[in-house]
């Protein structure tokens, strides 16, 4: 199995440790992982602003970088959702369709494709609360949603439950958006920051020492809000916990 490692621009620039953890984790399961050097971004910032034509070339570059792999795996539900569901600007060639269908978010790849049943190296003796990115949740359906009447499930929780010592705690509004919203975070900063601060307070009240998520963008925003409020909560990407990070 040949996997192309998709490292979203935010992760590349601000959280290289998340890219490293994702790479190492996949290799632990014997996956052959390539990191195409010419990757930049998925194009979501432009598309989310309505500028589809402006994101076309970026999306086409993505397809050139990642075509031919059995799977493309990235540690971000938001970016993966964009590739899978919103890659509409380029002409829909076989390559484009294939890349869209083969792009997976890390948690769903571990859960659905590799069907991982243990992380023997992982131990995280802390109270942790999970934040699901809205695109990962409502776009990729990595967990059941409180709005819908459906059977309860959570792929990230299934994985975290296999980590020794980790105790999951819940917050009062578990699937409320944290307010990051991509360019929303800069263009509508007041509401964005307020949502993030409310989220950070909710997390802090839950008694969680750590917040984890399969999306660095939400974590980066929430961490910034928690710091502004002088809350002690720490933020860590799920790939790091699953790869055996200790604290």
């Amino acid at each position, binding site marked *: 199995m040949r996997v192309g490692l998709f490292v979203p621009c935010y992760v590349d620039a601000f959280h*290289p440790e998340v890219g490293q953890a994702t790479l190492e984790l996949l290799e632990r399961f014997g996956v052959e992982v390539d990191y195409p050097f010419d990757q930049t971004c998925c194009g979501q910032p432009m598309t989310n602003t309505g*500028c589809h034509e402006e994101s076309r070339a970026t999306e086409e570059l993505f397809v050139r970088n990642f075509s031919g792999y059995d799977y493309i795996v990235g540690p971000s539900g938001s970016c993966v959702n964009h590739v899978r569901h919103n890659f509409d600007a380029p002409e829909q060639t076989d390559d484009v369709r294939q890349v869209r269908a083969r792009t997976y978010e890390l948690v769903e790849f571990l859960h659905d494709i590799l069907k991982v049943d243990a992380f023997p190296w992982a131990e995280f003796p802390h109270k942790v609360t999970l934040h699901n990115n809205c695109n990962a949740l409502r776009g990729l359906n990595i967990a059941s949603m409180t709005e819908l009447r459906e059977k309860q499930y959570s792929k990230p929780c299934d994985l975290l439950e296999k980590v020794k010592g980790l105790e999951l705690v819940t917050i009062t509004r578990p699937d409320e958006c944290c307010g990051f919203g991509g360019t929303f975070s800069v263009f509508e900063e007041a509401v964005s920051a307020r949502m993030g601060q409310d989220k950070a307070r909710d997390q802090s009240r839950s008694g969680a020492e750590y917040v984890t998520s399969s999306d660095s963008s939400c974590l980066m925003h929430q961490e910034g809000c928690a710091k502004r409020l002088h809350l002690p909560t720490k933020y860590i990407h799920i790939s790091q916990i699953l790869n055996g990070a200790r604290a």
Partner: protein
Amino acid sequence: MTEQRKPETPAGRTSEGAPASLTHGAGASITMPARGPEPQPRGAVIRGNHPIDQAEAAKRFMAAPDHLAMHDQRLWDLRQKRDRQKDQIEEWEDLRQLASDIKTHTLTHLDTYLEMFEKNAKANGVHVHWAKDAADHNAIVLDILRSKNATRLIKSKSMLTEECGFREYAAEHGIEVVETDLGERIQQLDDEAPSHVVVPAVHKLRTDVAAVFAKTMGTDPNDSDVIHLAAHQRNHTRPLILSADAGMTGCNYAVAETGSVVVCTNEGNADLSANTTGLHIVSAGIEKIIPRLEDAAVFVRMLSRSALGSPITQYTSHFRGPRKGGEMHIIFVDNGRTDRLGLEKFWTSLKCIRCGACMNTCPVFRRSGGLSYGATYAGPIGLIIDPTFNRHKYSTLPFSSTMNGSCTNVCPVKINIHEQIAGWRQVLAENHEIPAFKKSMMKAAGMLLASPRLYRASLPLADSALRHLPRFIVYNRMNTWTRGREMPHVPKETFHQWYKKNRGRNGKKS
């Protein structure tokens, strides 16, 4: 009007407003006077046809901590009650699909059912009118009223009459309108539009209501007891209702096979409005039509559960014809609806049954207040409907969303609201209805991100002035990130650099 909880305020303040550290104790050198009730933040500033600045109005709403805390909590409570109702109905998701399918069928056979309704309603003795726009609607109502020498009109809640600007029109033409819904009456007395399709005064604290009543009815401004307030309103309004000349209601469902109209209220005020006088005028959007009475059962099961988390509204009233000796009129209004029906990506917004569930769940709405949108329809459904009325004025609204998708999930008729928000962004960008700086920023970002070489060169370097964020975010006059948040920590190397150093020059094996 809503029940008031003790609001949770940001650290350092009590709900009474004085800094917590100074309310009592040795630290206080002077006695802090008790602060009066927090003034009500007002909605968006309307400047003619200029695009609405929702973010600005939202900021003012959030600067009123008591209002913000109450509004957020109250609407979140409604959302939770809605969830509990949904959990009690095993076939909930099937019901949503069925409701959506009924709407699809009806909207794709709209002409057939409207004509069927007209035929059956006429047979019941109801006058049927057709209005192509708001002006038409208002003129028809005025004609009917004048023909009866009616000058006082009592009416129940109707978003359509808001859409038509009917209240102002009536006032200009010497018609006194008295709203019979409590929340709507509060809004009327305060000369404010409803902020929510179901709970029109939900953004007001009871102290705000006391202030409005004091100003308009001469009651005690310091008495904000909800029982007293409700009694004042009743005593003040009842005589006006009983001596009215005409009554008006909206319409939740117009049933084609029976030619009857169904109106749902919790206060019984539609019955009051329809039955107190001999004249009943119904304003209905053409999309309110449903084929059969049994279809109404599907929507009745969903409406109040979605809206308020109650199994059913207190009153579900069926109006099939005029009272003995009276008259009943129904005005079907288009006002842009047939144009919307022709919009491939957006026509399903016509399925909306105005339950407001999307507003209750929307985290932006809860923190902004409905009046921040400066449009008849606020919140997620407003973002996708308002631009059909005025593409320029409401061009900013589809951006007042994180597109998190919760609205789509709670929608009882399964409108893909968050996808349509994204769709509108595209339409607006393509039609030059987004700010020029945003467009050029995206153009620059698109060029940068399409070139690995330029992109790599733009990334934050340890000694760069732009080290905090990728240049395409920072390189503008709008770096607002730090107003409410700290900057992320910048690592000493990017993943790319780390990989190159530790895993070799080219990561792509061929």
